[in-house]
């Protein structure tokens, strides 16, 4: 696998992120609190507050956010995006911040890495596994009469193309 970072890909990633950031319109947020009051995570985690997150972005304090755990604790329920009266989506902002945080080399939950590695190696996030029934018997796809699992036919090519995209612009 080549470690060369494809210049075009880097540009693309940056462009996409730039577009997201400029469309964020975080400045028009009136801090009304509708997003936070709809958020299922904000109820249980005092540190997670979409309204405050948008305020920080509007004030240019994104570095703080990139380093924090906060941006990783969104459950992507999309209630904030659905209801914001200014059409701001804290969820989409969080996704961009996550992308940026990874590229800036900040720590993030290990589970994501495992998934990315699995997809790059096997084409799927999880390999089909043996499961337990309620009666504690073991079953798998074959014993249940299901067709074998699918994955990309040319794994090498898939890994090359996808890997290149993932690696573009930073760590990966």
């Amino acid at each position, binding site marked *: 696998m080549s470690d060369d970072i494809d210049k075009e890909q880097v540009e693309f*990633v940056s462009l996409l992120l730039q577009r997201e950031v400029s469309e964020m319109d975080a400045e028009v947020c009136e801090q009304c609190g509708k997003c936070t009051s709809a958020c299922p995570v904000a109820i*249980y985690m005092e540190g997670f507050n979409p309204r405050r997150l948008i305020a920080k972005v509007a004030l240019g304090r994104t570095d703080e956010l990139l380093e924090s755990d906060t941006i990783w604790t969104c459950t*992507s329920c999309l209630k904030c995006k659905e209801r914001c009266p200014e059409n701001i989506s804290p969820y989409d902002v969080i996704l961009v911040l996550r992308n940026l945080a990874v590229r800036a080399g900040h720590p993030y939950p290990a589970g994501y890495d495992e998934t990315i590695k699995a997809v790059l190696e096997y084409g*799927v996030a999880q*390999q089909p596994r043996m499961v337990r029934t*309620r009666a504690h018997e073991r079953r798998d796809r074959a014993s249940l009469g299901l067709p074998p*699992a699918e994955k990309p036919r040319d794994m090498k090519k898939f890994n090359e193309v996808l890997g290149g*995209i993932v690696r573009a612009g930073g760590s990966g």
Partner: protein
Amino acid sequence: MKYALYLGCTIQAEQFGCEISAREVLPRLGVELVDMEGTSCCGFPAFSSLSTIGWFYLSARNLALAENLGLDILTLCNGCYASFVETKHNLEENADLKGFIQEKLRQEGLEYTGDIRVIHIIELLHDLIGTEKISETVTNPLKGIKLAAHPGCHAIRPSSLGRPDNAENPQKLDHLITALGAETMDYPEKTDCCGSMLATASGTTTLTIAAEKLKAVEGYGFDGLVTTCPFCFQMFDGRQGEINDIIDFIFDTDSEELEVPIFYYTQLLGLAMGLKPEKLGLELNLSPVDALVEKIAGGAK
């Protein structure tokens, strides 16, 4: 009605009940399911968080595979549905991005135009097949059984991009439930999240979110909960035991364990059609479904 069946990782790897029941009941409704070759993960949620372009790539390649078959793509999972629809939308909006992705796909020998439709299982059952037709296939109505509908976040939000059902007052899954002869009712937590997307980042909050919903559902006197997303299903069904293990901690007081039977919709549809539980993967549900399944299947001729 012929569709390219896209399973997605969760179903293909472990939530076999969803697949078994879908494969069993959909052909009986006149749906031909065509298996896709060479599919990959749709990219949600790991790639959407870490590499948005990678996410678009993964979704686009699955769409391209379906395009190759000349078929619309059917998903059994909210997350996969959201991925495909968002990818299609983003690529339509941004010609450069589309060109970039198309070029990469060609390296894998795939062509993407974005012309096929993405169909969610709720859409298929409610809009394309219709509750009337479904009712006609019911020989064993689920009489006297009250079920809570859980459409799941990505089947209803965000409305701006078009979703199978209404964001604040989704009723389609409810109609599908009553089409089986069962009862349902609106309840305040219906549009709430299952919390599973938080699992990667948090230990207990993800379980707390699910626990609150299940507790509420139990409190209203529902006999069970029905969903059309394997992620939600995995959380409510597969992890109900885990929730019960720490339930005192979750509710911060001595609490009764939750006992909520969880079903993927096509499993119940199968039972209402008079099919045997083994044909619907019901032995794989980890939530306490036995009593309810016996009650329902016992009524089957």
